[in-house]
């Protein structure tokens, strides 16, 4: 029971367990695992910035391929067992919350670092850092937000998607917020700059309060609203706990979050400890996002993708390209990941990668590529079986398949052995049996859940 809870903790607040973590916590206490996870997130190191490239990239057309290579770079970090899985998971959450499409690789990495640095800190600091991030300033047109010709794009999303949620402000509020953020701009090199001459320093009335508000004041007024804490708590609940938030629990958690002065780390820890995670409707009910799915394979099961193109291809094939969310509302998640085609591709991923049969997907061409010949692409992958042998070796008296079921699936008791046995039991050779077992588990719908 306690171990199952620890496994869920790793799955939801990280990317699952490596065999080493499995060995360690199978006998360990949940509370210690929790401490460990949060301790590990205290050390935050930036991702390396790639060369900024020509400055014209900021204003000209996006260079898509190099831009999206920052995504594979980030996935490799998520899959690195020495990086904090909690910190990377939170950074991924904020990437969906503060959804943004940077215009150049170095800006993507800088934006990602901004999120990571504040991911478990103060929401006030995070929100201000995002508002000053060059990628966000450009994505939501604050670069064009000037005194006398305000652009409301950032203001609207700040209220609708980042803090209060729809229906808790008026159109006038948006206009006033836009005025308060006039002059919040960025240089071509990606630095924040406050252009005082473009700032409207007149009086504004926002949510009933009048003053010569600047952007920082608007943030403070937003944080004074309990609604902001509630909105964020609900969203974090959906991401970590389950699709249907429990209103009583959310009210209690968001009250604590508000009282703590928007301490994200405390709220996330409260969520991680919350008994609601163990309610039957929330156990094994989270559909893995494509990034969670692939990173889990890389981090825990010995799968390797030698080239970044393959990782990018998988992101595109399954519908989650890092640094290219569908829009500023981020990835809807949940059932939205699954349709007829994506489900079959996901169920056959293990077979495709292990049998080197290639991934049979014709994916949409990018906008600028010539339309003549959409190609089936091959994903280069490798499987290091020593990782799974390492999983099994400490348990010589246990059935390997049962250890693997416990390792791979949210509920080892609900395994459809009737579907797996005919495939696995054909083999006696331990190595072949091992790989068929991996393919078998990956072919189960339950593998998509955690």
């Amino acid at each position, binding site marked *: 029971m306690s171990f199952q809870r620890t496994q869920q903790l790793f799955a939801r607040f990280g990317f699952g367990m490596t065999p080493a973590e499995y060995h360690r916590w199978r006998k360990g206490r949940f509370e210690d695992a929790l401490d460990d996870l949060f301790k590990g997130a205290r050390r935050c190191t930036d991702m390396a910035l790639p060369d900024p490239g020509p400055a014209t990239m900021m204003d000209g057309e996006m260079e898509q391929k190099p831009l999206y290579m920052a995504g594979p770079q980030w996935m490799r970090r998520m899959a690195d067992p020495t990086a904090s899985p909690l910190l990377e998971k939170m950074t991924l959450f904020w990437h969906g919350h503060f959804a943004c499409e940077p215009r150049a690789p170095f800006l993507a990495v800088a934006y990602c670092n901004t999120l990571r640095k504040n991911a478990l800190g103060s929401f006030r600091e995070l929100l201000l850092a995002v508002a000053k991030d060059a990628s966000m300033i450009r994505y939501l047109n604050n670069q064009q937000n000037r005194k006398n010709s305000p652009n409301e794009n950032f203001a609207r999303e700040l209220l609708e998607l980042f803090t209060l949620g729809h229906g808790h402000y008026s159109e006038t509020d948006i206009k006033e917020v836009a005025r308060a953020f006039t002059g919040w701009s960025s240089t071509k090199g990606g630095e924040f700059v406050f252009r005082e001459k473009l700032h409207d320093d007149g009086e504004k009335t926002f949510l009933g309060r009048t003053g010569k508000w600047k952007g920082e004041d608007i943030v403070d007024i937003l944080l004074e609203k309990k609604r902001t804490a509630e909105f964020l708590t609900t969203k974090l609940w959906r991401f970590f706990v389950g*699709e249907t938030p429990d209103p009583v629990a959310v009210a209690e958690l968001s009250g604590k979050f508000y009282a703590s002065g928007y301490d994200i780390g405390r709220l996330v820890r409260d969520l991680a400890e919350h008994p609601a995670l163990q309610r039957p409707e929330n156990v094994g009910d989270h559909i893995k996002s494509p990034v969670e799915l692939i990173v889990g394979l890389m981090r825990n099961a010995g799968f390797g993708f030698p080239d970044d193109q393959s990782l990018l291809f998988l992101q595109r094939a399954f519908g989650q390209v890092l640094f290219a969310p*569908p*829009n500023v509302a981020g990835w809807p998640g949940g059932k939205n990941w699954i349709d007829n085609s994506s489900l*079959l591709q996901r169920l056959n991923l293990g077979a495709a990668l292990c*049998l080197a049969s290639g991934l049979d997907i014709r994916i949409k061409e990018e906008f*600028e590529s010539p339309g*003549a010949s959409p190609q089936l692409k091959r994903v280069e992958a490798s499987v290091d079986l020593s990782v799974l042998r390492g999983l099994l070796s400490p348990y010589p008296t246990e059935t390997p398949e049962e250890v693997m079921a416990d390792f791979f699936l949210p509920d080892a008791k609900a395994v459809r052995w009737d579907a797996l046995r005919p495939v696995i039991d054909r083999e006696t050779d331990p190595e072949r049996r091992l790989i068929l077992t991996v393919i078998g588990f990956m072919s189960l719908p339950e593998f998509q859940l955690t």
Partner: protein
Amino acid sequence: MNRRKFLQQSILAAAGTLFAPLFVRAIDGARRPNAGGKRLVVVQLSGGNDGLNTVVPFADDLYHRLRPNIALPTEKLLRLDDRQALHVQLAALKGLYDEGHLAVLNSVGYPDPDRSHFRSMDIWHTASAADEYLSTGWLGRYLESGCTGCDNPHHAIEADDVLSTALKGHVRSGFAISDPARLRRGLQNPVVQHLVEHHHGHEHEGNTAYLYKTLLDTASSVEYLAEKLRPKSRVLPSPYPNSFFAKDLRQVADLIAADCNARVYYVSLPGFDTHANQHARQDKLLGQLGQGLGAFVADLKANGFLDDTLVMVFSEFGRRVAENGSKGTDHGAANNLFLIGGALRRQGILNPAPDLAVLDKGDLPYQVDFRSVYATILRNWLGADDRAVLGHPMELLDFV
């Protein structure tokens, strides 16, 4: 024998022993979607097709002045009226125009146009306003709320392996299939096949149930479509050209001819982002578009399906009116849109050519909101409640 080969063989052998007839939920032919037999084919030109070099305002001096290098010369034009002409590669569409099967809507767009491919395409797919973010597509919502009896995913089919947002609903989505054989192979995984054959019904809850249901629906639809696509001979008045786009259209025509009861088909032709040396690229793509659509429409017409078919051809935006410094064009705003069918209520050019003297930041301002086009198709063609799908009333047009 190397390990990979061996594994491949052993899994195939395992597949062989389990090759019992696939359990398939019977798809009831009697329960047909209620759209009066009408169907919609959406053709998406991805990348932002340069509409001004597609339906060319050749009589406008500004066109030539703003595009000194890329304005099309007379010999590359097929005149529609005394103001506008089609690109020469669209000869097939000129034929449809002459026969009364083509309508051109000029200056279709939306307020506060977004010049990002991704965002603008997202707006077209979800039918949102520029400052609104939706996670479902207009055709997905049509399946859910507008299309009575559309309880199988294959009632909206996209010729692709990745389903577009346009066809995604909250709990019900369209069906992506570029190659039925490929989907069938996906179901031959022995574990997957076993689960499909031996589904126990109601043992799952929540998202587990959702995944199993999606799997079973997929298996049913794949069998159904594969059966429908079994080669049957029909008269092809003109052969389909050799392009992926034409192959996709051919598959759509095969499904229509086989009486597959899909209401919506979705096909894409990518590559229209012509920032530099536009002529070569656009000539080639419009050639594929024109020849592909020409063969498709001729096929439908000869076999009696054109009167129940409406084709809409759109792109996420048009391009800047003035050419750039690289003999190309940058991202623009409003664009023209084609409607093709055997039962158009109005044909030809439906509204005035764009006024190149009145621009918004160098781009064409919109005259017709694309959601009016959607609303008209939903209500007047598919017999659906356009307000339920779009969330608010839009002005209806009269092309169908």
